[in-house]
């Protein structure tokens, strides 16, 4: 999802750059205030860890494999502010050392892949935990669902930036990006849940400690980030969305052809993010999104249940001792 140079126009690049700088500044300030000095080197090392963990392969089907993105993992293990700094470091290093992700798009990439992912991920995590409770099962459920939500949110932010730059049409970019990342998000949810469960099996205090320490300032931080992300969405989605109704008016004429052209390109279960037979309108997009969310929540719940039930966790522990020794 790294945007290369040349796909964002000037105003989008400057606006996302300003938002990313503001968000990163707040994150640095919050880390400096709330992080114990002992754990400050962990931020740099956690960035190297995310980079190394992204190299682990998770086989999907027939030769293809996925990998961890790591935003929610970092947010759950270190807290949202530290996660923003960790992921920004990863993105900056990828940009300057490997030319992965453009220089003018660095702001947009930091906004999408560090700010939006960590904020949305940690927000959902905190929300689900508030409802579901404090046990390990509730924590894993919250982790899995948060990972899915953060992946989808980042893809929507990316699509809106591409659309507001005039690189791609919103009605093409949004369903394509969202549908693909609704599937990728399931993998991210599973991997993140498995890793957090394994960390909790070896060193439970690493999972327990992080969210409990310095609780009050974190909510303030989450609120401020939420505001920033909302501002970004208003800046990019609103002008695009205001052009939406006339797009909808032309749906019958234009999109009838457009949909035929785009459906085979998208390997999505809900054929182009639109529930068949309901017509392509806002309600059906919302319905498709909701269906995806329910599926993701079910998967997270199932994983959390399986990982914390007795027989399997014994086997996982046996596996971990083999890896550790």
């Amino acid at each position, binding site marked *: 999802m*790294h*945007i*290369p*140079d*040349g*796909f*964002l126009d*000037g105003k989008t690049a400057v606006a996302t750059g300003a938002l990313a700088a503001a968000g*990163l*500044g707040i994150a640095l300030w919050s*880390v400096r205030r709330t992080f114990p000095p002992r*754990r*400050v080197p*962990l*931020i*740099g*090392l*956690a*960035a*190297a*860890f995310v*980079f*190394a*963990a992204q190299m*682990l392969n*998770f*086989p999907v089907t027939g030769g293809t494999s996925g990998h*961890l993105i790591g935003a929610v993992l970092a947010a759950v293990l270190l807290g949202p502010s530290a996660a923003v*700094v*960790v992921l920004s470091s*990863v993105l900056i*290093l990828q940009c*300057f*050392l*490997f*030319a992965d992700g*453009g*220089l*003018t798009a660095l702001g947009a990439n930091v906004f999408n892949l560090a700010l939006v992912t960590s904020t949305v991920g940690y927000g959902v995590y905190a929300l689900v935990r508030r409802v579901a409770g404090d046990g390990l099962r509730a924590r894993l459920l919250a982790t899995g669902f948060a990972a899915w939500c953060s992946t989808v949110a980042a893809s929507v932010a990316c699509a809106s930036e*591409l659309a507001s730059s005039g690189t*791609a*049409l919103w009605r093409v970019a949004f369903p*394509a*990006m969202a549908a693909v990342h609704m599937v990728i998000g399931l993998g991210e949810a*599973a*991997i993140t849940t*498995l*890793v957090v*469960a*394994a960390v909790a099996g*070896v060193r439970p205090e*690493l999972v327990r400690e992080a969210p409990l320490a310095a609780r009050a300032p974190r909510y303030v931080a989450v609120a401020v980030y939420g505001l920033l992300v909302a501002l970004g969405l208003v800046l990019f989605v609103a002008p695009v969305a205001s052009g939406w109704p006339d797009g909808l008016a032309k749906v019958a004429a234009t999109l009838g052809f*457009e949909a035929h*052209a785009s459906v085979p390109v998208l390997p999505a279960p809900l054929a182009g993010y639109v529930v068949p037979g309901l017509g392509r309108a806002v309600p059906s997009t919302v319905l498709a999104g909701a269906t995806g969310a329910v599926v993701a929540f079910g998967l997270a719940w199932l994983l959390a249940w399986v990982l914390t039930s007795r027989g399997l966790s014994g086997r*996982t522990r046996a*596996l*971990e001792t*083999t*890896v550790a*020794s």
Partner: protein
Amino acid sequence: MNLRLLSPYEHRTSPIHRLPAAAKLAFLGAVVCTVVLVPLGAGMIYAVCAAALVTIAALSRVPARHLAWRLLLLEPFVLGVAALSLLQPGGGAVFAAMLVRSTLCLFAMVLLASTTRFTDLLAALWRLHVPALLVTSLALMYRYLSLLVDETGRLQRARRSRTFEGGRAFAWRSSAAVAAHLFVRTSERAERIYDAMCARGWRT
């Protein structure tokens, strides 16, 4: 893994390599901004930028094969994003222009990466008053990157030599276990590093 495997040419001593990192960052950043900001039809400006970049590449004496390989490695991502612009009226022209534009920018960034040491870039960022916490994190990340990648390899090798290969579910769980243990070791290493930093007089 040695970091020189990742960027094998940043330690050479051509005239371009000897220039200060901030100057290279400023110049190549200006080239990228120019290419991004001029309208899609401005072929002359693209040609001038391309000529400048090729001249720098020749002066830097980085093998052309290395630069081409780096470009080809990243081109699929560019194609992936550009493909989204195909699905609109007149998308073909936009697609071609986007491709030229982002390949030029990619070329500039690959040149920067292979002629400038990352530590010099960090020093430049430090002088530009980028917050100390961010620069320290970046420096630590760069220092321990190859170490943790090696550690991942060792964990995977230890797992492979002690267990039979199971199905896909097993592969997922064992990769997750490797990641989890890597995190545990990373956090322990971070504490040792903090002690070592304090012993050498570092203060927050």
